[in-house]
């Protein structure tokens, strides 16, 4: 795989806030998902890839050039930024046409119509963009990013606000562009969304690159972490003593008056064990709650693991 994007030991800080810390990766053709919770540094990385902000340390090379200084590189990058704002008084066609003209596309009118068709928007819709729904505006942003047929496409949370059908449509569009030999980088904080891209994944958390590789390898890594489950019952002490040493349980502690927090490596085994222990000890279960199945804790685990 020849690298189209090379990020080498890049850090970025804003005053005292470290947004990105010592991140390195290289990307070739195809779709790469940048996964991480809000505030993980994904958007900052994407902005550096487009030259919108320089790294405080390290180097970013896109198509062999500096995306911040080299206008020939800029010409070959398409970006869907995260912010909502568009040139509100313009129609979708005018907005995308402007992008095509500024990019120096030979036939901007035809290119704009074609880009709007790619995202299933009507070029003859004369309404101003301010009258568009969030999903339509998102698709207009994608159209302006693709209008100049860029070699590198950077998409910051491009599926926000889209209905399920449009999500599927855009995911397949991005995959087609990637299969076509372009480098597509898509950020997301939704794990299931990334699965649909079915591609290489970079996981970011707390400004660091926490993991990278195939989606399934990352998923397995996430599933290997211990899970914490809180159980509320009418006799937590009896339940805790029954669970100690049981299959799949690596730790038990009492919490509050009726709570027991159990750590397990296999939530499915714990479910079976819990039912047996509760029945044998005549304990009535009130509530079983996983404590850290949210994405934030998954990312935290990936960052903190040795």
């Amino acid at each position, binding site marked *: 795989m020849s690298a189209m994007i090379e990020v080498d030991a890049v850090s970025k800080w804003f005053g005292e806030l470290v947004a990105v810390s010592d991140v390195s990766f290289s990307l070739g053709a195809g779709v790469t998902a940048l996964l991480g919770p809000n505030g993980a540094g994904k958007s900052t990385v994407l*902005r550096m890839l487009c030259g919108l902000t320089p790294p405080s340390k390290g180097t970013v090379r896109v198509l062999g050039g500096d995306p911040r200084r080299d206008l020939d590189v800029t010409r070959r990058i398409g970006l869907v930024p995260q912010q909502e704002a568009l040139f509100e008084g313009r129609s979708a066609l005018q907005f995308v046409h402007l992008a095509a*003209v500024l990019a120096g596309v030979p036939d901007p009118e035809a290119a704009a119509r074609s880009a709007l068709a790619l995202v299933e928007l009507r070029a003859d819709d004369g309404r101003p963009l301010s009258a568009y729904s969030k999903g339509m505006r998102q698709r207009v942003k994608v159209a302006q990013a693709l209008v100049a047929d860029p070699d590198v496409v950077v998409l910051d949370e491009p599926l926000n606000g889209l209905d399920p059908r449009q999500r599927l449509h855009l995911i397949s569009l991005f995959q087609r562009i990637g299969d076509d030999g372009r480098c597509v980088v898509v950020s997301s904080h939704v794990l299931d969304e990334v699965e649909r891209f079915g591609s290489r994944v970079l996981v970011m958390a707390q400004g660091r690159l926490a993991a990278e590789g195939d989606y399934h390898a990352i998923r397995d890594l996430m599933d290997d972490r211990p899970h914490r489950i809180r159980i509320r019952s009418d006799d937590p002490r009896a339940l805790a003593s029954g669970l100690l040493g049981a299959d799949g349980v690596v730790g038990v502690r009492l919490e509050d008056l009726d709570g027991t927090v159990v750590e397990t490596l296999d939530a499915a085994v714990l479910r079976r064990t819990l039912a047996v222990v509760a029945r044998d000890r005549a304990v009535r279960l009130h509530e079983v709650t996983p404590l850290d199945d949210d994405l934030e804790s998954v990312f935290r685990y990936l960052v903190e693991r040795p």
Partner: protein
Amino acid sequence: MTPRASTKVRRRLPIYRLVLRSQVTRARLAALVALGVVGVAVGAALGRADRPAEALSDGTVVAGHLLAGARFVNTFGLSLLVPVTALVFAAASLGDPDEEGTLVYLWLRPVRRSRIVLAAAAASYTVAWPVVVVPLALAAAATRGGAHLVVATVASATLALVAYTGLFCALGLVTRRSLVWGLLCVFVWEGFVATAADSAGRLAVRTYSRSVLGDLASVPLSGPEVSAPLRWVVPVAVAVVALVFATWRLRRRDIA
């Protein structure tokens, strides 16, 4: 026109049109046109009164309407209407897209940053010129100061607008509170500090535009003396330096 030049113009014009359209809002136009109308009304009131010729301290005798008209254009036009109008439009030309987050759609195109800045400044100037110069020329005419005063008003306001447009275009890229800083610059620096000493006065755009007004209308106006070439060259140089700085700033800054 060569194909290369044609491509340059084709890429610059859309930015110019875009900024132009975004700047012309009803609220802005209404407020500034109202200010211009006030100027014309005051000019007419000055013209209605009888004004005998005045002998100045240097012995020069100046027609009363000409002197009153020139002083009014200097005080109202060059000190208020021109800088405030330039501030409203020029600071918004790149400041608004920056604040809204749409600047990225211009920045992330293979267009030289200087072209973006020039297009924005040109658009601001296009909107501001008629808003400023037409009412000021009408006001000058209404004072009955004569044709020379009208010509001097048009020339000095046009020249001052060049300098202020450049300055405030750059200011819009430097701070998000460009209106506040711009007003401080106009009223505190130019209106107060720069009047305290000749050396400080030479760092105010108003000094040069006032000098042009006085020279063309043949009316001595108070303020530092500025030589003939400087009064024309400095405002243009200020605009050029400010726009070069704005280009540098646009190239170096983070884009949201």
